[in-house]
């Protein structure tokens, strides 16, 4: 292009300038288009969920039970279902992930660490539907045998499978935050003759707690938003679960199950309430992680 410049006569680089401006506008336009999707999704759900909100019982939805015969379309059982499945899976996944991350970052031998890290990275790419499928035919019968009752499709099965799903996300995040601990700190403890465990306990963990907490929140978000595992192996009963061996329906599987019903019905409108709650939860998660990343004083870590 510069070679042609002399031939352009009066305005050297005139065309270039137009291109530059045009390209910048185009890039800006795509960026605006992309973020407008985020807003559009929320707007759409809000507008379509409006009949619910207009009736003045929008906030009751979150506390009411689900019984269409009495005209109650509360999503309380689903909220409890989602909470119990995802929190239980985090209870399993957090210590497991912390252990695996420490093994990869500090404690394990180099070769094994590298291999294990690849496996964990690979696990993030395994389709969710396969976890659900294997869950039905491998995990559910085992749970049924051990606890001798019910169908085996319960909160426990779903959260065990979810543990396998969310652990890789958490482990990779933990490793990243371990990697960000300043090299000088690590050299210092090596120079002092500290053992690997001491390095982990007194240097890595205290310095990486923000990252660990963010990883925890991201894992929770992943567990909250997953549909297929809960849909396939949590049993989907619409009632507030009483124990981990009860069947439960999550907000996500409620959406998937009700979508087939009549579009104009109130039952259908209730799924927008589920959608809105999931959206709001996502936003809170993102806000928490961003807050942790920047810190209260606005210092980027």
């Amino acid at each position, binding site marked *: 292009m510069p070679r042609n410049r002399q031939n352009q006569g009066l305005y050297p*680089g005139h065309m*270039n300038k137009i291109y530059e401006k045009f390209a910048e506008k185009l890039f800006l336009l795509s960026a605006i288009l992309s973020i407008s999707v985020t807003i559009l999704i929320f707007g759409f759900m809000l507008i379509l969920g409006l009949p619910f909100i207009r009736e003045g019982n929008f906030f009751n939805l979150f506390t009411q039970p689900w019984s269409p015969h009495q005209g109650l379309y509360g999503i309380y059982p689903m909220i409890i279902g989602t909470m119990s499945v995802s929190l239980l899976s985090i209870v399993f996944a957090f210590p497991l992930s912390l*252990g695996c991350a420490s093994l990869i970052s500090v404690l394990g031998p180099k070769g094994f660490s590298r291999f294990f890290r690849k496996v964990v990275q690979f696990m993030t790419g*395994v389709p969710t539907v396969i976890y659900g499928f294997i869950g039905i035919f491998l995990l559910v019968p085992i749970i049924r045998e051990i606890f001798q009752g019910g169908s085996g499709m319960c909160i426990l099965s779903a959260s065990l499978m979810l543990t396998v799903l969310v652990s890789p996300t958490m482990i990779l995040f933990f490793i990243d935050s371990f990697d960000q601990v300043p090299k000088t700190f690590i050299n210092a403890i090596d120079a002092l003759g500290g053992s690997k465990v001491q390095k982990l306990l007194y240097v890595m963990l205290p310095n990486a707690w923000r990252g660990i907490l963010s990883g925890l929140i991201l894992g929770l978000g992943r567990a909250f*938003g997953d549909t297929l595992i809960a849909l396939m192996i949590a049993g989907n009963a619409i009632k507030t679960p009483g124990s981990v061996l009860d069947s439960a329906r999550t907000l996500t599987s409620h959406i998937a199950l009700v979508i087939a019903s009549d579009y104009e019905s109130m039952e259908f409108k209730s799924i927008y309430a589920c959608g809105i709650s999931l959206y709001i939860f996502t936003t809170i998660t993102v806000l928490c992680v961003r807050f942790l990343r920047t810190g209260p004083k606005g210092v980027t870590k």
Partner: protein
Amino acid sequence: MTRPVDKLIIILSWISGIMLLGAISSIIGYLLVKGLGAIKFSLIFGETSPVDALLLKRQVFDGIFPAIAGTFSLVILSVGFAVPVGLASGIYLSEYAGPKIKKVFNFFFDILAGIPSIVIGLFGFSMAVFLHKHLSQYIFPCLLISSLCLAFLVLPYIVRTTQVSLENIPEQIRLTALALGATKLQNIFYVLIPKSLSGIVSGVILSIGRCAEDTAVIMLTGVVATAGVPKSILSHYEALPFYIYYISSQYSNTEELLSGYGASIILLAICSFFFFIAFLVRNRLKYHAFYRM
């Protein structure tokens, strides 16, 4: 000098490592043991001859060829939608946006990345119903709607990988072409993008895997159990992940169940293939950087 606490922590971390490895290897092992026997030509093409099926001469009835074809068209369409917009947004965020705008935009992309796929599916479904009522009778949940929704789903990945790999280019390289008189746009297209290509490409490949595996979005936006090879972008279609889900709840005999295992192995193979490609692309970058420095 090993204290008992030290030993305990080492043992616990090994236990968690072994548990996770055990879990994933038993999942994949079980799948392979149960399903490898089902991997045959007839699993994919049924009674139809493969050549006829591939040339779309004859319909495949009892094979998963239509599902594979559906998944492929989904991936191509949605990546086709997402890549240009995602690349352009990533370039804007990394090269043009000021710090404040960047912060706001990144916040929205973070939310978009976190929205559960079923919610995006719900959005797509509502959009289809809305368009059906107000725009045209011919629009209903279909391949086009699904691939648009999948594009929304992977858009933040593409934006983020593009932005990060552009931002990671060292200042020296960034300034060289500018110092020689190149314009900003020339610098972006002739220096910055080629330099960060492997990062961008691996992001795109990973999002291909994401499109291929996602089930929740397509469940709500037009995938069906039997539709044959998709005829147009406004028609229903089949897809591999949905086929697996469908078989798991509706199988009537062991043969059908076996085809579910077979389909799972094929889907897993497709996703791992893309994963390893992405991995190779990124690794080459690392070796490249290593030899240069």
